[in-house]
């Protein structure tokens, strides 16, 4: 091959190309006229002695940890909802998803004062002069703009989502929040790599606090940010930690508030299923290799019933525990003629459209005796908003995958 004909020449040419590329990146830009250096661009336009690389590094460290937690828990939630072939999520412990998603939302909200203080601490750098020394510097600054924008995107879109205000977001929240998370994490990695020497020096070398007496000290600001994060957490976390519900005056949900003491995301009227749900001709259709079985509500109630205590855990971070009674999904899988220890079930709602009208229950959850087609909640027939006549409830799964108003289950052997 031509490439291998004379490796000496080609590798030296490559090194030369690389060197020229680096020189080109470092080629100094012409200095902009000094007359343009006005307002915040002026030297010492920002005079707070509170700002220091140490403060920024400490806030950055906390923020990097928080963003990693949010990214990890968010990715788990995404993978459960859109599982690639290699992904596996257990059905136990039953409340694991309630914890991961509760942590996701609580950590994101606690980031609000952290990110605010971090951005304040580096705000003068937005006006550094000259704006760009060379192309490499310009690229680095652009990557910081991307990092800041993506971080703000995550916090603001998350806050809007838990308060269910979608009008300011001209895109589908879940998709935007997901891709922006990748953007933020990528930009964060670049940022940490670029700033590593500064961070290391700031954290290892003692930096005197130059704040004037009587003003807010560095320790004072860090404590303030901590208090703000604590107030926000206490104010909202009662949406999933029920004992704190009474003090969480800003919780978007109350775990015991809703029909049958359980919150609702989508109502029967909103889903357009009221008539179909109350139609006496309602039948649950189960399709499998053994053929098709249709069961009326009375037929379902005549099958062996199981009662389980399981949480509904919403992607929005709230959760609430209910006592559910119904037929084990694995018993219905047997009716369809499939081995319940190695089966997956496609569960469809009476809803005619909607992103979450159907879900596939993976083998781990189909096998689990806690996975029910529930008919009752707290001993009463399901409230229509909770999925009357029958709904799916499985352990350790996001609420959007707990299909309500179940009309049809298609069972197939997994593997």
């Amino acid at each position, binding site marked *: 091959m031509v490439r291998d004909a004379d490796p000496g020449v080609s590798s030296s040419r490559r090194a030369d190309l690389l060197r020229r590329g680096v020189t080109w990146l470092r080629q100094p830009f012409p200095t902009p006229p000094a007359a343009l250096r006005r307002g915040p661009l002026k030297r010492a336009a920002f005079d707070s002695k509170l700002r220091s690389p140490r403060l920024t590094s400490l806030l950055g460290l906390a923020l990097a940890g928080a963003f990693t937690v949010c990214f990890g828990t968010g990715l788990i939630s995404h993978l459960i909802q859109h599982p690639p072939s290699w992904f596996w999520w257990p059905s136990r412990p039953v409340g694991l998803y309630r914890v991961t998603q509760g942590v996701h939302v609580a950590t994101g909200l606690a980031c609000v004062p952290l990110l605010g203080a971090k951005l304040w601490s580096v705000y003068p750098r937005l006006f550094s002069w000259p704006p760009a020394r060379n192309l490499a510097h310009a690229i680095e600054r652009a990557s910081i*703009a991307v990092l800041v924008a993506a971080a703000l995107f995550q916090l603001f879109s998350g806050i809007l989502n838990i308060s269910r205000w979608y009008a300011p977001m001209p895109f589908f929240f879940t998709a935007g929040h997901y891709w922006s998370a990748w953007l933020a994490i990528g930009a964060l990695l670049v940022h940490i*790599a670029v700033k590593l020497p500064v961070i290391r020096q700031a954290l290892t070398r003692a930096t005197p606090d130059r704040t004037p007496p009587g003003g807010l000290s560095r320790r004072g600001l860090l404590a303030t940010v901590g208090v703000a994060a604590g107030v926000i957490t206490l104010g909202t976390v009662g949406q999933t930690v029920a004992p704190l519900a009474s003090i969480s005056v800003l919780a978007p949900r*109350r775990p015991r508030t809703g029909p049958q003491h359980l919150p609702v995301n989508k109502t029967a009227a909103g889903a357009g299923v009221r008539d179909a749900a109350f139609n006496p001709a309602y039948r649950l259709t189960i399709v499998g290799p053994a053929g098709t079985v249709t069961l009326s509500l009375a037929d379902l109630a005549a099958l062996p019933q199981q009662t389980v205590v399981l949480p509904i855990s919403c992607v929005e971070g709230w959760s609430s525990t209910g006592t559910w009674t119904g037929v084990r999904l694995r018993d219905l899988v047997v009716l369809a003629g499939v081995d319940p220890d190695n089966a997956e079930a496609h569960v469809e709602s009476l809803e005619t459209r909607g992103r979450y009208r159907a879900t596939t229950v993976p083998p781990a959850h189909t096998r689990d005796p806690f996975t029910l087609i529930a008919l009752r909640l707290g001993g009463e027939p399901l409230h229509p908003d909770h999925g009357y006549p029958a709904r799916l409830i499985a352990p350790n799964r996001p609420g959007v995958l707990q299909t309500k108003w179940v009309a049809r289950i298609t069972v197939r052997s997994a593997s």
Partner: protein
Amino acid sequence: MTTARRCLIAIGALVMAYAVIGALTDPDVKFGALIFLAGVLVAHDGVLLPLTIGVGILVGRYAPRRARALLRAALVVSLAVTIVAFPLVLGRGRAADNPSLLPLRYGRGLLEIYAIIWATAAAAATVRAWRDRRRPLHRRRTPRT
């Protein structure tokens, strides 16, 4: 620059490229996400942060020296809580057929939190003033160099 840092930059750049390609090929993202991305950046760096710094300057100019630190701290906490509470107080997410959604009176809740923040700050200021009367300010804290 060490090899480890170069590798980290390369990985970060790849992840960012993955995000951009993913967003461009996802029909649910649309152009609106880019507007929102730029919008939050401009709103924060161009409006929210300058206003915050402006209030900080006013505190530095007009507030009594002894009250400044606590005043700033209370303002920062109040601002952070307000950002989280604002869409809840506005209540645009409410739905007539779903009373379990945003079930609380968030305006009142926010006022309660303000009351706690400012009562705590006032209590701390009183304690500090009482201590300062016993120990003069200039002797209590001298700037370290």
